[in-house]
């Protein structure tokens, strides 16, 4: 069996609990992400989502376990894994354009200045930032604009994997909607592999091919992998009409509201903890309003 594009194997993170013992955040987490896939991870605060993200980005080291991407082990940060941080992390002393070209220069040190600026402008235009705006400092931009700059910076580098850490958490609902649409469009055009943390169930359904569900910590695990059986291109007003939408949404709400607690706190006994694949597809069986989710073992 060939490994998926991004493969997380037996990932374990422990911290000293301050009383001489160790606190296990998650243990033996094992899952994969295929090339070109858009995967969202949902879970309550403290379950270790951000820790997984930091390990994938190479900014943190796991206690044990291996992450491989494209057949190579991940160690340390790399330009192949672009990160969009929750708080944008733009450099406040650089203009919007310079913030993007900063990344382009790092990726392509051999490019001419004109080429770098041209490339940066092009990606800023993709997120709808053009004209005078690109010469402003981040402090002169709205929160939504800042996050768009951050997304442009990440996409402009063509990373093999794009990591989004709750990118829209600090934005109001309307701004979030327009940027989600922009993100979907750029992702559709680029075919990039995306791994995203979110707290927002509707956002996850709109964006993702697959949603990973995490139980509560400690001993959190990636318990389920829910396929989003809604065809693309998706549109926020149209998908709510789709027969699968509320079935999937209910499943997610049930998990986060109840089962994430029930499944929490189980040590793994050293076995790899693979998520169960959940596929909810009501097209064709739409007359049955509450089907049992069909469960099947994940195929990795």
């Amino acid at each position: 069996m060939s490994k998926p594009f991004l493969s997380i194997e037996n990932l374990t993170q422990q911290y000293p609990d301050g009383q001489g013992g160790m606190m296990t955040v998650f243990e033996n987490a094992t899952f994969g992400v295929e090339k070109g896939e858009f995967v969202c991870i949902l879970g309550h605060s403290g379950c270790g989502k951000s820790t997984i993200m930091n390990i994938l980005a190479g900014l943190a080291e796991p206690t044990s376990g291996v992450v491989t991407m494209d057949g190579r082990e991940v160690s340390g940060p790399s330009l192949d894994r672009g990160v969009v941080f929750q708080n944008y992390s733009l450099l406040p002393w650089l203009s919007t354009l310079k913030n993007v070209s900063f990344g382009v220069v790092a990726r392509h040190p051999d490019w001419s200045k004109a080429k770098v600026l041209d490339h940066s402008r092009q990606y800023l235009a993709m997120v709808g930032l053009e004209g005078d705006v690109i010469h402003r400092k981040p402090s002169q931009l709205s929160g939504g604009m800042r996050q768009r700059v951050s997304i442009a910076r990440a996409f402009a580098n063509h990373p093999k994997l794009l990591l989004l850490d709750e990118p829209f958490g600090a934005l109001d609902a309307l701004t979030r909607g327009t940027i989600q649409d922009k993100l979907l469009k750029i992702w559709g055009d680029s075919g990039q592999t995306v791994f995203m943390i979110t707290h927002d169930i509707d956002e996850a359904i709109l964006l993702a091919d697959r949603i990973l569900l995490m139980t509560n910590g400690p001993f959190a695990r990636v318990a389920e992998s829910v396929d989003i059986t809604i065809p693309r291109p998706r549109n926020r007003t149209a998908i709510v009409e789709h027969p699968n939408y509320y079935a999937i949404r209910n499943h997610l709400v049930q998990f986060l509201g109840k089962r994430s607690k029930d499944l929490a706190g189980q040590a793994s006994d050293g076995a790899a903890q693979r998520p169960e694949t959940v596929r909810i597809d009501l097209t064709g069986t739409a007359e049955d309003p509450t089907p049992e989710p069909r469960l099947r073992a994940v195929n990795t």
Partner: protein
Amino acid sequence: MPILSLNQRALLLSVVILVVGLLIWEAAIPAQQAVGELTEYERLTGGGAAKAGVPPPSQVFVKAWEELSNPFYDAGPNDKGIGIQIGYSIYRVLTGYAMAALIAIPLGFLIGMSPVAYKALNPFIQVLRPISPLAWMPLALFIIQDSEASAIFVIFICSIWPMLINTAFGVAGVRQDWVNVARTHELGHFKTAFTVILPAAAPTIVTGMRISIGIAWLVIVAAEMLVGGTGIGYYVWNEWNNLDLTSVIFSILMIGIVGMMLDAAFASLQRAVAYVE
């Protein structure tokens, strides 16, 4: 009547305070007693000579005009123009200050980046920092054996601390998010230091540089009173020995003006590196 802007009103008030202050000063100086009929005894004891006193502002203005219209004359060791004296002082301050900056900023970077270096060097800094720079003077004179170089050393030792501490503080306080941006873009250590940490810490570093130049200018006057020969500090003390209080007051004003200009230069540098988060 048009309403004046805030700045105009402030300017007006400043002028009023200046004029009133000068008038009070002028009026407070007792007029020299008119030399009337003196007895022979009074003439013999110098009763007819003018009494030494604090000069009125009008005399200071005349002196200032005289000095500033020919600031660079050199008529021997004890009679040089005010421009030459200030030039010597600025030269010493900038030399000592530049040497301090060359050591304090790289060292501060190291201390800020490395918690071990911070903990190891902190006790030395805390002991050396509160020492009055002039206390180093005898040691400097003995070791360096050159009064000019000793004055520069005193400037060096007094201006190093604020720059060192502020650089370390600024570098240590750079937000981890920005460092993470550098890391995810695979920037090397030097690239990270120059393109991320330096601009992020620059406002704090320049604040330290501004404090340092202020202290250096305070200290140079005292240092030059001790080492003598040239400089604005020596000039003040020399005019005091000549009992020329007009020149003393004039040079005090000049010290203030030069100090203000040095501070203004660093204030504009501070504005240039400032950023809003």
